[in-house]
């Protein structure tokens, strides 16, 4: 197992280096000059421009800038934002929990709904439930979520006024950030109604974000179940007179879960991409919106370090999925 892990990690090193090159390189070929954007309509004298470029290190050769970037990275320094002048890592850490909270709740919704629906659809293959749920899943899979979010806002916040328009919690609640997760912090604060308020703010964006993963998981669960239920051992178990529910729950479901877990793991990239849109629509203070803003402001350090962090997270989650997969399915390990 340890060896398996080490090989996997070793494998990641060149990929990670590649990611640093891509993140750094992309940012350098972005058209536009952050120094000029800082000055706006007013303009800068060439001397002042040179001075600022020097101060920000943009006058060094590109390779030197890249090695500076790498060196600082090894010391855990991701640079300072050109706009706020604050450390990028600090900004990332304050915003990241908001995205994670949204993502976790979304994946929980997707799994809690998607897996049972998939299982039921598989058991009742061909029934109206199967047909309706799988059609719904395909609709969900085809959903432009930015539009879906707008529709839900019109309906639930505009017409019905059940949910708040945007934000993470009602402004009347004010308590220190302990974990950065509003649901947990609101409970820790002990303030009455804070948790409900946080939950009511979270519900629409997480449902929107969950839409596509939910559809994928439901479809995947159904086909995995169908496949497993056709296997010999399940048929044997059935033949041996084991109760049907036990066959399904113990044998079929457990084995069907292997590909499903992989699917869930692979949704992390989907979730991060979806977070960009969801956060934009709901004004959710997470890293998706932060990245978009930074790209348009040409905030080099934020864009390159943000890209890097996000790619690193996707990579790590994929590794975790691989490991889980290895745990559940020992055959992989020995290969």
């Amino acid at each position: 197992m340890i060896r398996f892990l080490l090989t996997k990690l070793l494998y990641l090193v060149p990929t990670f280096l590649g990611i640093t090159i891509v993140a750094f390189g992309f940012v350098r070929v972005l058209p536009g000059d952050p120094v000029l954007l800082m000055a706006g309509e007013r303009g800068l004298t060439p001397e002042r421009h040179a001075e600022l470029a020097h101060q920000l290190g943009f006058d060094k050769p590109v390779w030197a800038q890249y090695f500076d970037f790498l060196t600082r990275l090894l010391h855990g320094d991701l640079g300072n934002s050109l706009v706020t002048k604050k450390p990028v890592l600090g900004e990332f850490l304050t915003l990241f929990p908001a995205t994670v909270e949204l993502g976790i709740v979304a994946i929980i919704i997707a799994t809690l709904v998607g897996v049972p629906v998939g299982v039921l659809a598989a058991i009742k293959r061909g029934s109206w439930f199967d047909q309706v749920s799988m059609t719904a899943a395909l609709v969900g899979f085809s959903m432009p979520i930015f539009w879906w979010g707008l529709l839900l806002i019109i309906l639930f916040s505009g017409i019905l006024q059940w949910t708040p328009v945007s934000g993470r919690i009602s402004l009347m609640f004010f308590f220190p950030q302990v974990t950065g997760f509003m649901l947990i912090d609101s409970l820790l604060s002990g303030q009455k109604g804070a948790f409900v308020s946080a939950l009511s703010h979270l519900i629409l964006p997480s449902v929107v974000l969950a839409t596509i993963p939910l559809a994928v998981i439901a479809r995947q669960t159904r086909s995995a179940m169908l496949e497993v239920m056709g296997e010999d051992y399940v048929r044997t178990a059935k033949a041996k007179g084991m109760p049907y529910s036990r066959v399904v729950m113990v044998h079929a479901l457990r084995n069907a879960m292997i590909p499903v877990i992989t699917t869930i793991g692979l949704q992390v990239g989907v979730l991060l991409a979806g977070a960009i849109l969801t956060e934009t629509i709901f004004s959710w203070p997470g890293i998706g919106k932060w990245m978009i803003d930074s790209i348009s402001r040409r905030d080099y350090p934020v864009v390159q370090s943000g890209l890097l962090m996000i790619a690193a997270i996707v990579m790590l989650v994929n590794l975790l999925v691989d490991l889980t997969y290895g745990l559940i399915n020992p055959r992989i390990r020995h290969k």
Partner: protein
Amino acid sequence: MKLLSRSLLAASALALMSAAPALAKTFVYCSEASPEGFDPAPYTAGTTFDASAHPVYNGLVEFKSGTTEVVPALAESWDVSEDGTVYTFHLRKGVKWQSNDVFTPTRELTADDVVFSFVRQGDATNPWHEYIPGITYEYYTSMEMPDLVKSVEKVDDLTVKITLNHPEAPFIANLAMPFMRIVSQEYADTLAKAGTKEDFNNKPIGTGPFKFVAYQKDAVIRFQKNPDYWGEAPKIDDLVFAITPDASVRLQKLKANECQLMPYPAPADLATIKADPNLKLDELPGLNVAYLAYNTTVAPFDKVEVRKALNMAINKQAIIDAVFQGAGQVAKNPIPPTMWSYNDAVQDDAYDPEAAKKMLADAGVKDLSMKIWAMPVQRPYMPNARRTAELMQSDLAKVGVKAEIVSYEWGEYLKKSMEEGRDGAVILGWTGDNGDPDNFLSVLLSCAGAKAGGANRAFWCNQEFSDLLTQAKKTSDVAERTKLYEQAQVIFKEQAPWDTLAHSTQFVPMRKNVTGFTMSPLGDFTFENVDITE
């Protein structure tokens, strides 16, 4: 669900009430963007100043609410020497600094704080100059303070003497700008000792009407009434900024009474806002101008007649209607009508395609094709440059001029439009910083501005015009300056380096029960006088 949340709200409101001795009055402002930081000096965005300079800090002088008139603030009075180069400020007595969890002031405001506020920006060797890596003082630099200020000296605890290198009438208006807010030297010392210098930018300490409480990035900023404020105490207890970048979401929050006031409504929503019985809408002409700058150094645009003819070919009213959706007015001068010295006697070149055609023919211009530069971004003075350019294009076609619309990424646009020999006319604009006409005319139209690094995008250098501006800077007599600027506007109109397009109008929607809010022509949002009536 609605009922449930209401009763929950009531329950938690009750809980809050029992905790607080008296019912706290909270005012929520749905702000448009996150502040870059809370130290007002290193930043340039209005949204940053709304969250730092205005609630937390004071300047020596400030703009009177709702005007661009400079009034005393931390300086009770000031004297200017005969030659206009020495300013002596007499500070207000007994101004208390705010406190927070890491700082309790031991002294009141003194001349030391004022000196510190200047030197940290002007002196690169000061340990507080670059207290965060990469920090710079763009406003201080771009307002040419380094060239202007010779020395800042403490005379006694409550007197500061500032010596200038040359007389400069707009100097006092510069001091009222947000970047020149007075910060506490004692706080800086405390933080330096604790090794947490960056808190100077994260946990601001000032003398203003509100104390900073907390900021949650991209989400919410909280302020509290400053009980020791030297001026009139604010009427609200808590001031909250709910950061909401999207205009339609802001409006929904306002409608739901999740906030009581918001900036920058979408033009499309103005009618809805006016119709809503719970809302009211304030409006004020903005201190700005949108223009089309010809390159006056390139043929045939070096000819006054050609520029005039093109100006007459463009239907500006149509732009106001279609692009500004009525939220603006046609411009005839380079400065807005709300600014002092605005010359209303100037006659605009009337829209007259026939005459324009004839003028072009007389000037010997045939089959002219030109480029129109359209900015890629929306600015307060220009909601949609692309659409403006499209309208111009069709207007120009009517007088036989072929126009091609070009655009670049915003940073590139700013750079390329200032390159020598630029091909085409550029749509751009300006928002005033300090209400002084010099802040428009010198920056945008003087000979000095036509050089690299300037902002004179017409590359227009008229000696007579520039001399008038220089002369006007040397005296602080407003009547005399007004006369000079009025004359300059006449020359500008005769020479027509720009087509002056529009001055946009600002709108601020708020709940009906909000009182005491005054719109600022500079686009500031300040809340020390607001109140909510029940």
